[in-house]
């Protein structure tokens, strides 16, 4: 019969999700799956995602691919979908608990954070001891990606994250502060300015994603500090990798949204045909789509690729 699937992303505007949608659409076409895509109005808009889930159930879809904005809050609604016999797959952002989805296709976000954290530490060398670090996070509700990357960075950088499930309970004096960006340029710029006002000597910036990093860079540029600050990020989209090449971003953990999307569509197709559910990566509770550090200033302790190679593997 006709297999239909849903893709529900956080927003329609982050290039990451734009690519994810393109990838999913292409794969769906290839496999003869009907795909409908939905998104929240802004990062953090969970209600629109709930309505989308319900529509998918009503529409008789066989499965849902979702990047959840509210990783805890959305769980009961997805349970309804699973109860109705749909396959629920989390993309990019794990749910809390992670087994609220049938499977998660995602970057190992903790690792992504650790990679850039460690890179920053090694790049600074001795100066890492009295670095001034700013954290540009996602939304007030602290969804799982946000926590994993933020706390991962700390671990990599050598900051005690205290409760690794909570942002903001740390007491390391090197932390200037946390601010939220909503994962976009405007939020990135304002958050950067806010933290600069707290401490103009900031020299390391962790950003949740590349749009936020781009905004942060503009803020630094406008006060003439873009040369003395190390920005690290996660995404590895083509614009981001170019930013690495241009020196706006020091290093970024590259993710593979197209893979998440196509794996997701394949899984739904397979589930529809055979009833079989996808399996996680060995030793993990999700399917790891991989992560690679992209930088033109490699450090010995981490395997990384340069921007030329990064551009080959980038998306968007």
């Amino acid at each position, binding site marked *: 019969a006709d297999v239909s699937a849903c893709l529900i992303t956080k927003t*329609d505007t982050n290039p990451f999700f734009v690519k994810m949608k393109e990838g999913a659409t292409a794969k769906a076409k290839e496999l003869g799956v009907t795909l*409908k895509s*939905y*998104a929240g*109005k802004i990062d*953090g*808009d*969970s*209600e*629109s995602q*709930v*309505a*989308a889930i*319900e*529509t998918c*159930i*009503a*529409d*008789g879809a066989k499965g849902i691919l979702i990047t959840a904005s*509210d990783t*805890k*809050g*959305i*769980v*009961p*609604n997805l*349970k309804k979908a699973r109860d109705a016999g749909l396959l629920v797959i989390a993309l990019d952002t794990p749910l*809390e608990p992670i087994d609220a989805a049938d499977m998660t296709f995602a970057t190992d976000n903790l690792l992504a954070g650790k990679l850039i954290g460690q890179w920053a530490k090694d790049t600074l060398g001795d100066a890492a001891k009295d670095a001034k670090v700013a954290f540009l996070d996602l*939304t*007030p*509700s*602290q969804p799982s990606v946000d926590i994993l990357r933020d706390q991962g960075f700390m671990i990599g950088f050598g900051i005690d994250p205290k409760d690794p499930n909570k942002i903001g309970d740390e007491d390391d004096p090197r932390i200037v502060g946390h601010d939220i960006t909503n994962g976009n340029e405007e939020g990135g710029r304002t958050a950067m300015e806010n933290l600069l006002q707290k401490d103009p000597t900031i020299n390391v910036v962790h950003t949740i994603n590349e749009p936020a990093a781009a905004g942060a860079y503009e803020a630094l540029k406008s006060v003439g500090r873009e040369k003395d600050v190390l920005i690290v990020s996660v995404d590895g989209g083509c614009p981001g990798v170019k930013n690495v090449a241009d020196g706006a971003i020091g290093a970024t953990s590259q993710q593979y949204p197209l893979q998440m999307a196509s794996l997701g569509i394949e899984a739904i197709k397979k589930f529809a045909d055979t009833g079989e559910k996808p399996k996680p990566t060995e030793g993990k509770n999700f399917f790891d789509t991989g992560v690679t550090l992209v930088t033109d200033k490699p450090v010995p302790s981490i395997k990384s690729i340069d921007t030329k190679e990064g551009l080959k593997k980038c998306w968007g």
Partner: protein
Amino acid sequence: MSEPVASTPHNDYEKVLKDSSKDVASFDHDKPSALHKFRHFLHSNPSAVSLIVLVVSLFVFGMTLGGKFFSAFSLTLILQQVAITGIVGAAQSLVIMTAGIDLSVGAIMVLSSVVMGQFSFRYGLPPELAILCGFITGALCGFINGVLIAKVKLPPFIVTLGMWQIVLASNFLYSSNETIRAQEIEANAPILQFFGETFRVGGAVFTYGVIAMILLVAVLWYVLNHTAWGRHLYAVGDDPEAADLSGVNVQRMLISVYVLSGVICALAGWALIGRIGSVSPTAGQFANIESITAVVIGGISLFGGRGSILGMMFGALIVGVFSLGLRLLGTDVQWTYLLIGVLIIVAVAADQWIRKASR
């Protein structure tokens, strides 16, 4: 007492009036045209326009999408999706009928739900009591709005704009952004999820939240049309000074309306827990805009004194029908927003037309 003077006009020239007709400036009545009669019908039934639009859009989407849309399941899903907007919209309707506006409805709803959740879990109160505390919170927020508007006489737009920020910030500060998870609620305080419980009638799935919305609107309809409080609410919205002088306690009315609005928002907060399962301090970000949209599409005048709460419910349902319909068609959601924007403007233009022409 001196004898009353004789009642002859002091000005001679007025004597002639004895001969003129005694009518107080009377009306001329041309034969009304069919169009005019229709307009008049629409005017005297303020919820008719939105009902017609609702039925027509149901019909059109039904024709286009067939069984997928026209199933008991889908149709009841629309009800579930608009339940929260409908409840908040009821609060908004009352306020707007007094020529006010309440931008803080969403914030009050969320704060109330957070109080219900946190009081149960952080302080270990029996959930019933926690729910009561949630209602008290809602009432209190409404009371502050009401006092600032009625007593200090500040414009509702400003007061509720300020309260929106204040309540939302308090909500984040108080909850420290913590979500209470559905599983936990289910295990320890299932009553918080009461309005999320479903029952089936054939293929139709109803939640108690849907029932709550329908009952609420019905009760308010009765109150607005068949009790003195309701008539006074319209009078206050129509012309507060006139209402005051003709014996309505305008300040008390306004305060009671904002308190009631707060209480209804708390109810919405409770229903929100049912709908999303968890208690999330970031939920409900668009409740104010959505409720205003429902009210406007439902034909309630922003200038107060006119409109029916049934219209608001139809308005909310229209938005629900369009959203689900377009979503099922697989169009970009942005088309839905665009269409709703157009609908808002057209609804008010139609209302204007009806009102102008039906005199």
